[in-house]
């Protein structure tokens, strides 16, 4: 394929079908690369791009990649899958896996709602610098729409999902666009989340392209705990010093006074709890006087969910960062007594906020968007790179699937 003029009628029709999915933000990518004066209504921009295509002002390969990535930079939810064995990436070098994928890659120009019956790879590209393969997966879908008389009806559609194989971070991640009015994807009715749909895409990939077992990404629980600790850390060496002095010189005296009042308090279980309560209280009051020292954190936190046994607890500041004075003592108690189950983090770059809710499923990590603003793939890469820094080395000890018990 060399250009627009070589397309047959059906291919032109398919091109128009996918062009209808393009929003203003995605047009701006083309605008930055090619000096096309875009503006006005979406229809007007579509016409200008088509004209530029016909005049060969836009490289056709560049255009098809751009069109394939139409839903990649939205407020997508991210699902991360890690292989059980880390040598999967060594045994399948990026270039040979890419060649294998390319052989099974169809074309967006031959993809239409009428023809598509099951998940297919319709585009693949490799980024050698980032060591990523980006695959566009097309799945048959239905949109739930309403006619002029407000009667609901279903319309056949094609849903585009993105699988990014990241050799640096050694994981597979799906980037799924929360398409408006979507009713079902690959015959799976979309309820609140995309979990089942993400699993269907991954099952397709594992069956057709690269079989592997998922690992249990338990490290993310540790990672989330460290993020919370960093966020609420007072970072003040004066407080740290005074706490140690208090522990060394005053604690035993205070405990002695307390335990003489009630015989049962002599039990070491009570003594430990008194010690913890006194230390926490002393620290909180020291923070009032000496204040926390501001520091650069990777993320701020707006939501903290934790649990133990059958009980769960939540601190939620509805999108704004959890306020130190309002939430530190309570979140600290949650951290001391429970395990974090999900965390709302905000990544900030160039003054723009990108909030995500992270949670661990039994074999994947999800990062769900909690607002509607679009996020370029580069930002998602940055978020995941920073998140991956919380992955402890210890995790590698478990390669080979020796973990026997889930939390």
């Amino acid at each position: 394929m060399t250009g627009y003029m070589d397309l047959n009628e059906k291919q032109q029709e398919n091109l128009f079908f996918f062009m209808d999915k393009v929003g203003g933000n995605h047009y701006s990518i083309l605008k930055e690369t090619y000096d096309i004066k875009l503006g006005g209504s979406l229809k007007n921009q579509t016409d200008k791009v088509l004209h530029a295509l016909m005049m060969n002002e836009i490289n056709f390969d560049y255009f098809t990649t751009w069109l394939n990535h139409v839903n990649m930079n939205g407020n997508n939810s991210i699902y991360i899958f890690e292989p059980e064995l880390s040598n999967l990436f060594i045994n399948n070098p990026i270039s040979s896996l890419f060649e294998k994928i390319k052989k099974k890659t169809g074309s967006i120009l031959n993809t239409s709602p009428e023809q598509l019956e099951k998940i297919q790879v319709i585009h693949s590209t490799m980024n050698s610098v980032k060591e990523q393969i980006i695959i566009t997966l097309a799945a048959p879908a239905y949109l739930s729409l309403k006619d002029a008389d407000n009667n609901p009806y279903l319309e056949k559609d094609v849903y585009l999902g993105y699988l990014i194989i990241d050799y640096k971070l050694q994981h597979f991640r799906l980037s799924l666009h929360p398409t408006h009015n979507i009713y079902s994807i690959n015959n799976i009715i979309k309820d609140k989340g995309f979990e089942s749909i993400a699993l269907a895409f991954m099952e397709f990939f594992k069956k057709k392209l690269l079989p592997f077992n998922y690992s249990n990404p338990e490290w993310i629980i540790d990672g989330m705990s460290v993020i919370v600790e960093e966020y609420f850390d007072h970072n003040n060496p004066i407080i740290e010093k005074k706490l140690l002095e208090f522990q060394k010189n005053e604690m035993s005296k205070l405990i002695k006074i307390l335990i003489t009042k009630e015989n049962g308090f002599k039990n070491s279980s009570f003594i430990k709890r008194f010690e913890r309560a006194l230390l926490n209280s002393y620290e909180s009051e020291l923070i009032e006087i000496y204040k926390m020292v501001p520091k650069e954190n990777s993320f701020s936190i707006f939501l903290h969910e934790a649990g133990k046994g059958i009980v769960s607890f939540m601190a939620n500041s509805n999108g704004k960062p959890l306020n130190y004075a309002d939430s530190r003592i309570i979140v600290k108690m949650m951290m001391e007594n429970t395990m974090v189950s999900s965390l709302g983090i905000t990544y900030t770059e160039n003054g723009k906020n990108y909030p995500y809710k992270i949670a661990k499923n039994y074999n994947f990590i999800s990062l769900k968007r909690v607002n509607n603003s679009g996020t370029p793939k580069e930002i998602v890469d940055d978020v995941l790179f920073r998140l991956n820094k919380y992955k402890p080395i210890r995790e590698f000890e478990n390669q080979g699937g020796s973990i026997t018990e889930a939390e």
Partner: protein
Amino acid sequence: MDQLQKLNDLLTILRENESVSPYYLIRKTNIPVNVIILILNIMVERSLLKNSFILKCDNPDNDLIHGYEFEDEEKLLDFLRKNEQCDQCESNLLTRDIRVFYKKGKVTNGGDVNG
């Protein structure tokens, strides 16, 4: 030794019937997963701790997720044999994600759970 002392402290501080997850203890003590589970299971055998198995349903509305707690595997299996779905909302039961917790038994002997 320092790690075991930490584990002892974390179990000592628990109140009677308070539950703790093995991963919480792993995180706080840095003891490897297989070692900590071995220690905890020995403590269950000695009745210092009790097992607690938590099963939840997958209701898409977070506020409507139901949880079930079982004190031993037999009771959990018995429930699963009798119920294919959540008996409160008919959602699926997350049988692939059963969580194991440990609960502190009756505190005697000065409170130190390692005796």
